[in-house]
Every structure is written in structure tokens, then in C-alpha cells.
């Protein structure tokens, strides 16, 4: 049978020559679009080096790993590490804390940038708007180490501004950062302060895309500013909110590990120790790399399940999805 490849390439190729046609199409495509692939190359290399190559090392989660024997030389032990983890109270506490902090963040931190963007949109004084935006964006650009330093200082029992004010009001001073019940509010609150402004940019961009005639039409129809915000702005940026929500759910179990590491201490492990800090302590400080890899794999699988479920749910409910 003679093989024919038309301009459309693969689609018109006979079934028997499908593979060859596809290869030819690819060669032609690369020749034509090589500049795009050159531009993509750094990103692809980064992904391969830092995200795909380490996956090879994931096998130590199923091995009795020793740095002297190496990955290849270490014997397979099946799911033993997972069984150990599931029998470890500290791991369960870390899983519980991860989910509690993640869901509290989702409940309290996720809506703040949306509210901020809606509020910025209502400010019509240009200079005031720019000043307000700059002030709330700034904390994002400060290193997390400095942020942690500021927070530790603010809540210090002797010199902290919070305790000083409480002292002036005649209240008893509290050492917030060693009390487990205060760890989550301080962590989530300071995270909101740091990131909410910057995260509002994406919603502001979405609001900027709403046609001004929708507002004009609503004004003629009799809508107040409040009604316009509820009935036009918010529904118009809803697809963006959904996409951001899915991305957020995907990163749910990744609850700002460095920041927690900088803020927590053994006294607050009870409420502050999360899977990633647990992995850090097990893997790097305790040199149990195989156990840490198992915990990390568990973390990644949970994240994958969450983001897939959120995407499917969103596609069904709101007709908006990430993929």
C-alpha cells in the first residue's frame, strides 16, 4: 500500500503508516518551530533536573537505604517504611496538623486577596489607591526569615509590641510563641499579612478585564456600588477564583514549610509540626532518608488526589477547570 502524507500530516495518513507519518510530522514541526523549543528549553531542563531526576531516588522509600550502599545497593523492603509511618504517632500528628493548617488557611487566607481586590477596585482616588496597594504588596518581597524575625519580635513577651499594648491595657502578658493554641492563628495571620496583597494582583487583573459597559448598564438599571460588586464583579471573576482555588488545593499539603520551621519549637510541635517539618527532622536531622522519602511520597500522593478531585468537582459544578 502506498503511503501518502498530505499537508495536514498525521490526520490524512493511512492507518498502516501512522507512526511514520507522525514522525515525519514531528520532524517538520521541529524544523518549523525550533525557536519555540529553544525558548522552552531552560524550563524543560529545570523540570527534568530538579523534579524528574529526583524521582529516581524515590525508590528509597521502598528500600532499607544506606548512604554507604547507595540507592542501587540498598535492599528492597517493600512497604515497611509506610507501615512504620502509619504506626508512628508523630507522623499522624503531622498529617493532622498539615490538614488543619491547610484547611484553616483555605478558609481564612484564600478569601482575603479576593476581598482586597474588590476593595481596591472601589478606591477611585489614584494616589491613595497606589499607596494602599504598595503597602499591602510590600511584605511579599521581604524574606521569610525576616518576616519570622519580625513576628517573633512582635509577639515577644518582654519587648514585643503586642505584649506592650496588652500591658498598657492592664492585661496579663502572654508568651504567644510557646503556647500551642496560639501557633496556628499567628502562622495563618502573619501569612495573610505577607501574601494577601500580592495574591490580590491576579484578581485585580481579572477585575480589569470586566467590560466597563456592564457597570454602566447596571448603573442605568439602578444598581448601587454594593450591588455591582456582588452581582457583576464577583461573578465575572468567578472563573479566576475557581482556577486559583484548584491551584491552592493542589498545594494544600505544602503549608509553607520554611516559615513553620522558623516559627515553631518543640513546645508548639503539638499544633505546628506538619508533614514537611516531620520529613525534615526525620530525613536531615535523624538521617532516616528512606523513612523521609516514604513520608514525602505520601505527601505527594495526597496532593495529587486533592488537585485531581478539586479539578473534577469544579469542572462539574462551574464548567471551569485547570485541565
Amino acid at each position: 500500500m502506498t503511503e501518502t502524507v498530505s499537508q495536514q500530516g498525521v490526520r490524512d495518513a493511512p492507518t498502516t503508516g501512522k507512526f511514520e507519518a507522525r514522525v515525519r510530522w514531528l520532524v517538520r514541526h521541529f524544523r518549523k518551530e525550533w525557536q519555540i523549543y529553544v525558548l522552552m528549553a531552560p524550563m524543560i531542563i529545570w523540570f527534568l533536573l530538579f523534579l524528574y531526576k529526583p524521582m529516581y531516588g524515590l525508590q528509597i522509600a521502598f528500600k532499607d537505604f544506606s548512604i554507604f550502599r547507595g540507592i542501587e545497593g540498598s535492599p528492597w523492603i517493600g512497604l515497611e517504611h509506610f507501615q512504620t509511618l502509619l504506626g508512628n504517632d508523630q507522623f499522624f500528628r503531622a498529617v493532622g496538623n498539615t490538614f488543619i493548617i491547610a484547611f484553616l488557611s483555605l478558609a481564612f487566607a484564600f478569601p482575603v486577596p479576593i476581598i482586597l481586590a474588590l476593595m481596591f477596585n472601589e478606591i477611585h482616588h489614584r494616589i491613595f489607591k497606589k499607596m494602599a496597594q504598595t503597602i499591602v504588596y510590600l511584605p511579599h518581597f521581604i524574606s521569610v526569615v525576616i518576616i519570622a524575625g519580625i513576628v517573633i519580635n512582635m509577639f515577644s513577651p518582654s519587648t514585643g509590641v503586642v505584649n506592650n499594648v496588652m500591658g498598657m491595657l492592664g492585661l496579663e502578658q502572654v508568651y504567644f510563641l510557646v503556647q500551642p493554641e496560639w501557633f496556628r492563628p499567628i502562622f495563618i495571620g502573619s501569612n495573610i499579612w505577607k501574601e494577601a496583597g500580592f495574591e490580590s494582583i491576579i484578581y485585580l487583573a481579572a477585575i480589569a478585564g470586566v467590560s466597563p459597559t456592564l457597570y454602566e448598564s447596571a448603573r442605568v438599571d439602578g444598581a448601587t456600588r454594593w450591588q455591582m460588586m456582588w452581582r457583576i464583579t464577583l461573578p465575572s471573576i468567578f472563573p479566576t477564583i475557581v482556577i486559583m482555588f484548584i491551584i491552592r488545593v493542589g498545594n494544600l499539603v505544602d503549608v509553607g514549610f520554611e516559615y513553620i520551621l522558623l516559627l515553631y519549637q518543640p513546645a508548639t510541635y503539638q499544633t505546628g509540626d506538619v508533614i514537611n517539618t516531620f520529613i525534615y527532622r526525620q530525613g536531615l536531622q535523624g538521617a532516616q532518608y528512606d523513612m523521609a522519602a516514604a513520608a514525602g511520597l505520601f505527601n505527594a500522593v495526597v496532593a495529587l488526589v486533592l488537585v485531581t478531585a478539586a479539578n473534577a468537582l469544579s469542572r462539574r459544578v462551574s464548567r471551569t477547570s485547570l485541565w
Partner: protein
Amino acid sequence: MSAVTLRKVFKRFGPVEVVHGIDLSINAREFVVLVGPSGCGKSTTLRMVAGLEEVSDGTIEIGGRVVNEVAPKDRDVAMVFQNYALYPHLNVAENIAFGLRLRRIKKDIITASVNDVAATLGLSELLHRRPADLSGGQRQRVAMGRAIVRQPQVFLFDEPLSNLDAKLRTQMRAEIKRLHRRLDATSIYVTHDQVEAMTLADRIVVMSDGNIEQIGTPMELFLNPINTFVAGFLGSPPMNQLEATVSYADGGPIAKVGSDIAIPLPELRQLRNAEGHPIIVGIRPEDTAVERNGAANAAGIKCDLDLVEPLGSEALVHVSVADHPVVLKTETRGAISHLSDVQEFFVQPDHIKVFDQKTGLALDHPEVA
């Protein structure tokens, strides 16, 4: 239904003045079309009536009440926008009901009103569709439905048909006209399309550079344009305008175009003792003929043929008269072979308009004389 009156209305954006003190009286139930080229201030004027732009100076009255400081929602006007301004997250029924829901009208009344309007506009089958699932014409109908359902005192249309294709535009034009006849509401309609203006309006307001050039019925403006701008704006193709000087022959005034072309002019008082006066001769393409056809007083004007554009039942013949381009419109019924040797065309002096070359004003217009 309410009358709308604009008195010495100015609009300035910073130092730039875009509307220069216009006066306009629109009667109750009248359909007035503001027409003019882009940037002439017609949309700004409409938006000032709607309350979407503040009036810099002057007053706007709706139903005898000055509304300069009245919010758009309290002016009892409804507006149809060029890009429809439909809420993408609401379906057709919810879009139409939007204004009523804001006014907290009872649900059963809203449903009845929406169904009624939808039936009028042929939208009953589409009530549960979102705007993204509608065609351009259907979207425009929904936008009109949203305006109609509120039963306002005044309807404002801001180039509502500009985004539609030519065929749909013709259909929707007729629909708007029928709707106006049925609703009998005061309507102000902005367009840059002179065909829309001619077909829809009770009265046309021609605007240019923030000023009103002329107000009148479509035929008044077509037959008696006040100046060269109006003459050139209305009509398709527009009126031919030839620079000339006044002279006299056989006891009557003539226009001398170039060195050897003479066009007989109508006997106007203003053309007496005006030898050498610079004028512009206005000839509508429709008033020309390529054959004399027994019209004894029709003047023959020598010309050079440039090209023929057949349009089916008629043809546009592009010629030049003393190097001035002129367009002739002639009925052909499909036969155009005889047009290829046109060397002369005919026009009756009574059909010729004469404008002052310096001021651009028509010499015989009652408002000028």
C-alpha cells in the same frame, strides 16, 4: 412618555471641550437620531442624558425635571449599548429581569414581564441560554428586552447595530422601528450610519465636532442640507460637491467649473449680482441622468468616464468634471453596456444645491437666508 430638553449643554474632559453648548428639544414619543462621524460628540451627548457623564455646563431636562444632579437609576431611562452589555454569568431571563430584581419587584410580576418581553422579541425559546450561546442578533434582542422590560420614560440607543453584519442590521433596524411604533416611547438613537438615521428617525440631528449642524426630518435634511457637511454626510453615495464661481449666460446664473464647464444654476435671489463669487455646486447622484430622456430644461455637463460600478438594478458611474470626481447613480435593470461611452450627464437646475464656498452654508436655506 417624557420630552427631553438640552439647554446650552457643554462637556469638557479636562481642558478639552468635546460638546460646545448644544440646544436640543426632543418631544415626547419622538424618535430622534443623533448622527455624525466618530468623535463628533454624539455618544457623549447620549451618555450625558443617561447620567453616565456629568454635564460640564448647561441643563438637561427629562419630563420637565432638570436631571443634571440625578443619578442614572433615578432618571427613568433605559439604555442599549453597542456591545450589548449582557451579564455573561446570567441567562437570558435573568439578564432581562436584572433591572426589575434590583428594584425588588415581586417575583411573579418579574416572571410575567420577562415572558411578555421575550414573546415580543422572539426570545421565549432562549430564556435559559447564556449570552455566550447566542448569536449577535439574539444578544442584541436580549439587550433591547432588558431596556423594554423596565418600561422607562426614555430609551437611549448607543450604536446598537454596529456590531452586527449588514443583513442582520437591516433586519434589526426594521424590528427597532416596529418596536418604537408599538411602545410609542421617546427614543434617542446614536449612530454614525446615515442609512440607519434616515430609516429610523422622526427627526435627525446631524453633529460635527461637538456642534449640532442641522436638525430636521430625514427628507428635510436630504433635500435641504444647511451646509456642505450635512450634504456630504447624508445620502449614499453623498452629494457631489464641485468648486466653482458664479457667472451669467443667457440671462441666468451659471457655475463655471474649471475653464470650460458651465453648469446652469437655479434662479436664486442670492445669485443676483454675484459675478465671480466662489461657490460649491451640490449635485445628488440620484438627480443625474446619463441620457436627456426628454427633460428639455436639463443641462448637459461634459465629463470623462472613470469607471462603472454595477450594483444590480442600478449602477454608480464615476466620472470627472474638470478634474473634479463626480458620482452618478442611474437605473440599469442589469444592462450596463451603454454606460461605457458616457461623455455627458444631465441634471435639472432646480435639483442643484448651491453653497457659499467660504462659509459652506446653503445659499437658499431658510435658516441661512
